[in-house]
């Protein structure tokens, strides 16, 4: 299970995003000013319309920046009090009821119970909050207009901007006040719901194949059992993890000589893995660098495949590898793979693969582990800081650097060859041809020997990228006729875990961001729409936010079958959408022109709404990945980026409106 995290550092992201934002906002308001001038020009004449727009712009700038916090707070408190007096707390009661009865409709046999419960709890919190916010915001200002209570507010020294901010702040406060207890209840529910332990009712029995081992199973709790293996020689007991957790197990020998096993509460069930992703590259079957692997016919081209028992390999480059990257004095890589079989293979085991580390500069390479694939599961590879080849059963290998690395390819990986005969890994090029500094050594230091202080490579555009403290990780499939499939995030370096509670909180911050955005849109729409229309408009904006990627895709011209006009022509002519349109140049240009206008409009619409799904970080919490601080900061900046122009827009809408009408 992996999560595609492609979040840049806030420092990398911010300058470009801020510039894009400034340009977009400027264009948006210039467009608004132009439209304002156009419409008022019809009634007032161009000169007066120009003056009016200038005056409005000046007043807007003055009013949106000169708000009094005291006034905003008074209005926010009013909004808050109104919602409380209208018994909004009932939403929290509904939530508690949902949580209380959740156990009745959540699948008890799920192999990933933690994920199921966290998903459920975040889903219900988000849906309840979103529905509540849509309705509350839609009823606030329109009700003020309908009851004319706004008359007694705007006739006080209150700016329109303060009314907008007061409303939004009130709803945000209210949402926060609801989310805090919901979060606490949720956390307690998630943790408590999976609390259990097991007994070992039937004791252990002698292993049939290995007399040094005894085996047994635990009692069935929450629809699962664990297998227990007891190593009599070393007096070590091992518990097989299942359902995303294990237990600490202790053995006590009773007076009767019987062994008694005590299992702790689940451990490792709720985690927040801090992971580092690398850059992926591929070697094709001849060991030549390729931009992607083999396509095995999946419609979804997320993962690329490498053929088994060839020179094909996945190569990940991880940078900034320092002692701080170690967990328990080892680098821990986790790898999720998909397997494509062209034949059944050996029935008693999974597909065999190999995991290597490599110094991208010296070419020194080490086979860390030969492993069996885990389809749908995650393989874990530990690379200790001090590597003893014989003790760790690792094989030293070498690979030659290609001095003539071409641009557009991975310079350090071009023509890397691993000698192979009959599918077995064999000896490697002689030491004197390699710059590995003593390949005969039995002991290696991870950082000195496998981490290159600096490594350069070329990106797709031929630009050289220099990285610091880089290590390469290679994965190969070793069985002929079988394929491994992986994408960039399938391999990650796992660092020390973060706190699950803190991660849970950050997940709730994601819901909070969504709630803030919906409050903003709701209040802005309610400045010029009636309640039912505001509900609909906010609902559609929310929907658009969740399907942002789809909307963005509609705004591009790469849709098969073309835009609506081209598609209409195809429908009319009954042309297949995969073939070129059989039209003369004029018709073609006309259709493309209309479609371009449509695409531009959709792209514009798409930019008016943020991608709500990017705020939704519950999947990270559910799947046990840490939500990086960068993600939270970028989301916060995105919220602010939308909130600021929306606030100004809301001000203009309300200012333009005759309160009495």
């Amino acid at each position, binding site marked *: 299970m992996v999560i595609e995290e492609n979040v840049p550092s806030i420092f990398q992201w911010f300058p470009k995003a801020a510039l894009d934002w400034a340009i977009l906002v400027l264009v948006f308001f210039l467009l608004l000013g132009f439209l304002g001038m156009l419409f008022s020009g019809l*009634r007032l004449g161009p000169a007066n319309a120009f003056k009016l727009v200038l005056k409005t712009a000046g*007043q807007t700038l003055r009013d949106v920046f000169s708000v*009094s916090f*005291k*006034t905003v*707070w*008074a209005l926010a*408190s*009013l909004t808050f*009090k*109104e919602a409380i*007096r*209208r018994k909004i707390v009932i939403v929290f009661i509904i939530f508690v009821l949902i949580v209380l009865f959740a156990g009745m409709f959540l699948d008890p046999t799920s192999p990933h119970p933690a994920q199921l419960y966290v998903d459920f709890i975040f889903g219900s919190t988000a849906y309840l909050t979103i529905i509540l916010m849509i309705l509350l915001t839609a009823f606030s200002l329109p009700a003020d207009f309908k*009851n*004319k*209570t*706004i*008359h*007694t*507010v*705007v*006739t*006080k*020294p*209150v*700016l329109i901007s303060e009314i907008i901010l007061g409303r939004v702040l009130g709803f945000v406060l209210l949402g926060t006040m609801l989310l805090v207890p919901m979060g606490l209840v949720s956390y307690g529910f998630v943790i408590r719901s999976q609390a259990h332990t097991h007994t070992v009712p039937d004791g252990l029995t002698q292993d049939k194949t290995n007399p040094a081992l005894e085996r047994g199973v635990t009692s069935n709790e929450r629809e699962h059992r664990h297998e227990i293996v007891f190593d009599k020689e070393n007096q070590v007991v091992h518990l097989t993890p299942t359902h995303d957790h294990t237990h600490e197990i202790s053995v006590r020998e009773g007076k009767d000589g019987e062994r008694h096993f005590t299992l702790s509460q689940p451990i490792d069930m709720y985690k927040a893995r801090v992971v580092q992703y690398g850059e992926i590259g591929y070697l094709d079957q001849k060991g030549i660098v390729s931009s992607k692997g083999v396509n095995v016919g999946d419609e979804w081209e997320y993962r690329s495949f490498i053929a088994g028992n060839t020179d094909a390999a996945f190569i990940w480059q991880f940078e900034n590898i320092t002692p701080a990257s170690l967990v328990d004095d080892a680098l821990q890589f986790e790898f999720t793979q998909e397997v494509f079989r062209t034949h059944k293979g050996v029935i008693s085991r999974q597909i065999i693969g190999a995991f290597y580390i490599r110094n991208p500069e010296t070419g020194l390479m080490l086979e860390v582990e030969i492993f069996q694939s885990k389809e749908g599961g995650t393989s874990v590879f530990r690379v200790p800081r001090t590597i003893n080849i014989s003790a760790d059963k690792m094989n030293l290998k070498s690979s030659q650097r290609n001095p003539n690395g071409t641009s557009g390819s991975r310079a350090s990986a071009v023509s890397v060859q691993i000698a192979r005969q009959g599918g077995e890994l064999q000896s490697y090029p002689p030491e004197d041809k390699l710059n590995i500094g003593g390949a005969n050594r039995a002991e290696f230091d991870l950082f000195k020997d496998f981490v290159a202080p600096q490594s350069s490579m070329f990106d797709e555009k031929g630009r050289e990228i220099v990285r610091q403290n880089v290590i390469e990780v290679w994965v190969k499939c070793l069985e002929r006729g079988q394929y491994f499939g992986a994408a960039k995030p399938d391999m990650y370096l796992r660092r020390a875990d973060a706190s699950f509670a803190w991660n849970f909180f950050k997940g709730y911050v994601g819901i909070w961001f969504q709630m803030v955005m919906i409050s903003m849109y709701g209040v802005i729409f309610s400045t010029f729409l009636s309640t039912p229309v505001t509900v609909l408009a906010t609902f559609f904006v929310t929907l658009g936010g969740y399907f942002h990627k789809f909307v963005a895709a509609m705004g591009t011209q790469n849709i098969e079958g073309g835009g609506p006009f081209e598609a209409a022509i195809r429908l009319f002519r009954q042309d297949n959408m995969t073939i070129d349109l059989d039209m003369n140049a004029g018709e073609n240009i006309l259709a493309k022109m209309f479609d371009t206008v449509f695409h531009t409009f959709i792209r514009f619409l798409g930019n008016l709404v943020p991608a709500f799904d990017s705020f939704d970080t519950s999947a990270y919490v559910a799947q046990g990945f840490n939500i990086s601080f960068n993600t939270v900061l970028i989301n916060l900046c995105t919220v602010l980026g939308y909130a600021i122009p929306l606030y100004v827009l809301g001000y203009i809408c309300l200012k333009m409106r*005759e*309160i*009495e*009408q």
Partner: protein
Amino acid sequence: MAEVVVETRNLTKIYRDFWGRRKVHALKSLDLEINQGEIFGLLGPNGSGKTTTIKLLLGLLFPSEGEALIFGKNASDVRRNERIGYLPEESYLYKFLNAEETLDFYGKLFHIPAAVRRQRANDLLEIVGLTYAKKRQLKEYSKGMVRRVGLAQALINDPDVVILDEPTSGLDPIGTRDMKDMILDLKKQGKTVLMCSHLLADVQDVCDRIGILFQGELKEIGRVDSLLTVKDTTEIQTSTLPDAAIEEIRGVVQKYGGEVKSVGNTRTTLEDLFLRIVEESKQHPGRRAHGGESNGN
């Protein structure tokens, strides 16, 4: 000469439909000046433009032409509102608040310090007679009580100009009298009051000057006493006279070429009668009041 605090210049309001077509010409070129310290009444039948004028002054409507100024500033300058109190036609207040919270909320909008706010709220609730009900939510109030809270909120900032839209609407006769007394009190404090009403008696009782609007046009403006003086009629009020004396007076009038149009007892107003009965009932609970006979008839 007193300072002009409220002023309209060529103030015009035309209501249009969605397509910009003219629907109603609600106010036509109104020029008006109201001086500091006077009570000015806008009179007119329903739809004459009274409330439109007030809303234009307060910025609740945008003028189609002309200007509406208070303290020389138009509605876009909200700082002028610090010196204005407004009681709407119906008290548009938040019904989920109680009276104390209502005044506190509006006080906050004026940035009045908390201690002063509390003190002023208590004083105003005392003045409007709602101290006993200050903890009850407004949704439990009668219309008259809400109206009183409305007045209190209009005065929370101790304004220099008070604008009252139908101030006695919804009030019982006692409330009406109280309201009129309060308006006169405001004048004593040097405040300027602009009120509009179609209850002529109320306007007559309290206003220094009035303007009469009809179909959006100002038809008459001036001091109440001079406007109401009927110049070709003389009125003499005396204590009750015997019939002989009346006949003698009739002769004197005829001798000087005059004509006696009516002779009889002075009639009180229904409002006075009602207030007398209520007062008497308060003083003698359980006894039938004689308000109607107590005037000597």
